[in-house]
């Protein structure tokens, strides 16, 4: 080996050095970061790492009040499931309920109290003490000068002891302005039931045991009253019983989820559902062999509703009417339900009275598979007690403009979003000197608040719930916190109690927190004695209820098969009135609650935004549904942007050609179009509520939100509707196979090849 001169040597050293560095870096690059093991300072008793713990609670994503079981690991909520013991959900849960986790863990939650120091200024963080004292001080002054009534409390629909707490608080303040406001609250149905049967609460519609269901516009599987429970009923009625298969008919201008599930979908002109119902009644009373004492009265009041006359009004053929009437009367037990858009016309209450009267005519009252009347809830007056109607909201707005309202407290309700622009509620709120919001999220209304006292989500707080309508007997459930609070928030009840104490109302509010209040309340329930969870000692009873997540009274209620006097004479349905002339505004706007976003409260949950709409598979956005023929006439195809123009305003949304909607109707989902509701909801889609005309149902004063006429103005622009579905036609591929009738169980197995292992040798 010849000697290496200096340059070569340097070369070698350089090369070696570079190599070394490279090798070092290589090893470094495959090294992964150091992880740590963090022990608990003190081990918690209730759970141990690596093992799931389950807590029972109550879902409050909608007003149905399903019982839930939450799976937690290491103190974090992982999954919400239905509570098998709870009579409403019976172990099942809807998509919305599942998404409750994203309410808890939502990145856009309000993390602590905030206050506007100066009018129109920035919202700045404050401590709870400051916040409470600021509000309490104001309330104290008003109360002292006897102006307690100038305090207004607007809440979402709450039940149980929290509702009681609100009432007590407002009484103490000396104010009667306590209102629960939900856009979708079935106000007119309550009125109808009340007029027809003199009942304050809704009856229990027993889908599970019925054999024939007529639904007039009620999307009972979508969002009407208690979707999960109806789903259970639907399934069991379908093939829960030997040889009996419940059949379902859906009567509505636009096919809803329930319409798709039904055996028959009958499109009837919007607002004429009641007339159709009376048409059926007419046939049942006259030809249906109806002989009860009040037959003559019926005949008299139904005279005008011969199938022929009805057919020409509703657009449903007379044959169909007679056929449905005969099946309805002939198949026992049968059930007629009405709600949704059908109840939100100028003739809403009359319509629902007519529909429910059908149940009376065929004797479906108080029996299995029919209409079962509920005992009054164990606590509180039921949901309709302090429910706000559109009119009462207008009054509030008016008072606010007059300056009669000094303080407005909002709890989780978002009227700025769920009231039409015509109500000018935003402007009214702006007039109120002190607007306080207890919401957990920065929604449209909360954004206008001067003081924000963010409350816990339902998974962090104590509470209880008594489902309304019940399930035929009185039931209730306690909801317990399943995780420790994430942020510097407080339970709504605790906030109220805290306020009361700050106001010095200690004798009226002797409790230190909501949990105590609940225990005291449940003592009374325990004292009534008649409970499913038998326990002599209250402590056992309480822990039992909290553990089981449910409590129920065994006693059912019997009620004579009768209607209020004078109802029969007064029965009758006017033809609906719509705002705007049919010449100027050719289409009737049929807004419907989105299956995924409900009335918009679900829009900030990414899971709900990503859940394809069942009927159209559209995600993230709004659309306008048109009948294919209508679309053809207007030369519109999917994705064309159109202005939907009502007398009250305009929204722009892309067209979706929807095969199952009446040609003179266009439908839009409610839920999108938030301007201020977190990153997932803001500035996405449009809100059809804004362009609704302030048409009210005269008897209840509720908003007739299905009674707006609109016209379509193509903009010429196109967008690509974001949807997951492709071509929704089978093209003869027999993907969804059908049989004509329920085959008898004796037949041979339908599977030509039961999946067995393929054995190769």
């Amino acid at each position, binding site marked *: 080996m010849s000697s290496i001169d200096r340059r070569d040597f340097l070369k070698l050293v350089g090369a070696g050095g570079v190599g070394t560095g490279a090798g070092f870096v290589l090893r470094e690059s495959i090294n992964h970061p150091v992880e740590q093991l963090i022990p608990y300072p003190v081990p918690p008793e209730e759970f141990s790492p690596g093992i799931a713990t389950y807590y029972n609670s109550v879902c409050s994503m909608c007003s149905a009040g399903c019982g839930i079981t939450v799976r937690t*690991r290491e103190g*974090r909520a*992982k999954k*919400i499931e*239905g509570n098998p013991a709870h009579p409403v959900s019976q*172990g*099942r*849960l*809807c*998509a919305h309920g*599942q998404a409750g986790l994203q309410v*808890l*863990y939502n*990145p856009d939650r309000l993390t602590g109290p905030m206050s506007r120091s100066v009018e129109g200024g920035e919202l700045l963080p404050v401590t709870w003490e400051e916040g409470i004292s600021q509000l309490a001080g104001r309330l104290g002054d008003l109360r002292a000068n006897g102006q307690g009534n100038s305090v207004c409390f607007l809440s979402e629909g709450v039940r149980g002891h929290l509702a009681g707490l609100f009432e007590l608080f407002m009484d103490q303040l000396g104010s009667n302005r306590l209102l629960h406001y939900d856009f979708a609250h079935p106000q007119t149905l309550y009125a109808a039931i009340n007029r027809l049967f003199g009942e304050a609460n809704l009856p229990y519609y027993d889908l599970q045991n019925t054999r*024939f269901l007529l639904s007039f516009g009620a999307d009972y*599987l979508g969002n009407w009253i208690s*979707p999960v429970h109806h*789903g*259970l009923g*639907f*399934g069991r009625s*379908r*093939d829960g019983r030997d040889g009996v*298969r419940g059949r*379902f*008919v859906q009567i509505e201008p636009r*096919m809803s*989820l329930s319409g798709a*599930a039904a*055996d028959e979908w009958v499109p009837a002109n919007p607002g004429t559902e009641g007339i159709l119902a009376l048409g059926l009644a007419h046939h049942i009373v006259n030809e249906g062999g109806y002989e009860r004492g009040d037959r003559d009265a019926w005949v008299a009041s139904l005279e005008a509703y011969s199938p022929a006359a009805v057919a020409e009004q509703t657009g449903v053929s007379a044959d169909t009417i007679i056929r449905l009437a005969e099946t309805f009367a002939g198949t026992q037990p049968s059930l007629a339900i009405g709600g949704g858009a059908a109840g939100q016309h100028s003739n809403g209450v009359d319509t629902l009275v007519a529909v429910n009267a059908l149940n009376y005519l065929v004797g479906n009252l108080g029996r299995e598979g029919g209409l079962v009347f509920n005992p009054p809830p164990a606590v509180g007056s039921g949901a309709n007690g302090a429910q706000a109607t559109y009119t009462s909201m207008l009054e509030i707005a008016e008072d606010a403009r007059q300056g009669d309202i000094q303080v407005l407290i909002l709890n989780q309700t978002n009227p700025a979003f769920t009231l039409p622009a015509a109500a000018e509620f935003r402007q009214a709120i702006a007039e109120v000197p002190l607007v306080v919001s207890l919401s957990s999220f920065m929604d449209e209304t909360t954004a206008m608040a001067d003081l924000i006292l963010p409350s816990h989500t339902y998974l962090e707080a104590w509470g209880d719930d008594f489902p309304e309508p019940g399930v035929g007997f009185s039931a209730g459930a306690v909801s317990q916190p399943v995780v420790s609070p*994430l942020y510097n928030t407080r339970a709504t009840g605790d906030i109220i109690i805290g306020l009361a104490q700050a106001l010095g109302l200690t004798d009226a509010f002797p409790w230190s927190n909501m949990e105590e209040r609940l225990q005291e309340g449940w003592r009374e329930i325990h004292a009534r004695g008649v409970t499913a969870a038998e326990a002599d000692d209250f402590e056992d009873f309480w822990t039992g209820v909290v553990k089981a997540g449910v409590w129920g009274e065994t006693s059912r209620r019997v009620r004579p098969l009768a209607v209020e006097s004078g109802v029969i004479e007064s029965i009758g349905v006017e033809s609906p009135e719509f705002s705007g002339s049919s010449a100027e505004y050719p289409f009737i706007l049929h807004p419907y609650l989105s299956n995924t976003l409900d009335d918009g409260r679900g829009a900030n949950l990414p*899971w*709900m935004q990503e859940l394809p709409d*069942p009927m159209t598979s559209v*995600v*993230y*956005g709004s659309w306008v549904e048109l009948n294919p023929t209508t679309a053809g006439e207007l030369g519109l195809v999917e994705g064309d942007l159109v202005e939907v123009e009502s007398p009250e305003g305009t929204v722009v949304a892309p067209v979706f050609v929807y*095969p*199952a909607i009446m040609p003179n109707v266009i439908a839009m989902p409610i839920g999108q179009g938030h301007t201020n509701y977190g990153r997932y909801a803001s500035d996405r889609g449009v809100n059809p509520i804004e362009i609704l005309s302030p048409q009210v149902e005269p008897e209840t004063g509720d908003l007739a939100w299905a009674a707006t006429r609109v016209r379509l103005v193509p903009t010429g622009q196109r967008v*690509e509707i*974001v949807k*997951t*579905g492709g071509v*929704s036609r*089978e093209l003869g591929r027999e*993907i969804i*196979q*059908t*049989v004509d009738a*329920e085959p008898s*169980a004796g037949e041979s*197995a*339908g*599977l*030509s090849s*039961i*999946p067995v*292992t*393929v054995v*190769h040798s």
Partner: protein
Amino acid sequence: MSFIDNFLARWQEYREPGYYKEFDYAWTMTIDLDRCTGCEACVTACQAENNIPIVGERGLAQGREMQWMRIERYWEGEYPDIKLGFIPMLCQHCDAAPCETVCPVSATYHNQDGLNAQVYNRCIGTRSCAVYCPYEVRYFNYNNHHWDAPLDEQLNPDVSVREKGVMEKCTFCIQRIRQAKDTAKDEERRVGDGDVQPACVQTCPAEALVFGDRNDPQSQVSQSMNDPRAYHVLEEVNTAPSVVYLKKVETDAG
């Protein structure tokens, strides 16, 4: 020589495709289309249970949905006499699965419980399984997905979060099956009927979904499999699926 013997032994295994003479458990699901209401509770339940990412509007616009269980909808007829049918579509756990033969690295295979297993950390992302799957139920991670804090607190620790370039699909909630087996083993018994339910079955409000072991003739799923309405979607492809559908009953309402 042990390596050679080893190799030869394995070669024998490979000559026989990855099917079993019989399964230990044969997990099966039946879906009653007459009960299914298309409410999509199952979809969200699955998304919550299995750490299925939030794809975002852009991703969905590009057609990259990830939900392991989806509801397909098929219109029939024209207005006014038109019907809409829903059919939940999820991995059929075929006993003769095309996807299993094609994966070059055996990242997807059939296990002794009749499950069509997907081993995420073995997957190299050729995506051929998705091509071979006639049911379109295999979903590919086109990029790393992100959960805005604190949404990630909800992630299920029993299910791994998949990284970019990995194929994923329905597992019949293997983590729950594993848990049930664990408990059963403690009590020295076999997993009984109803001990384990995937998230979708558990949540279905209409009780349209039934899950169980078809090796056990008493199990609820065996009963409903023998219903005359039972059928397989795309039977002509002959993949022997473990998901059995029950035909929709069509009667005029009278």
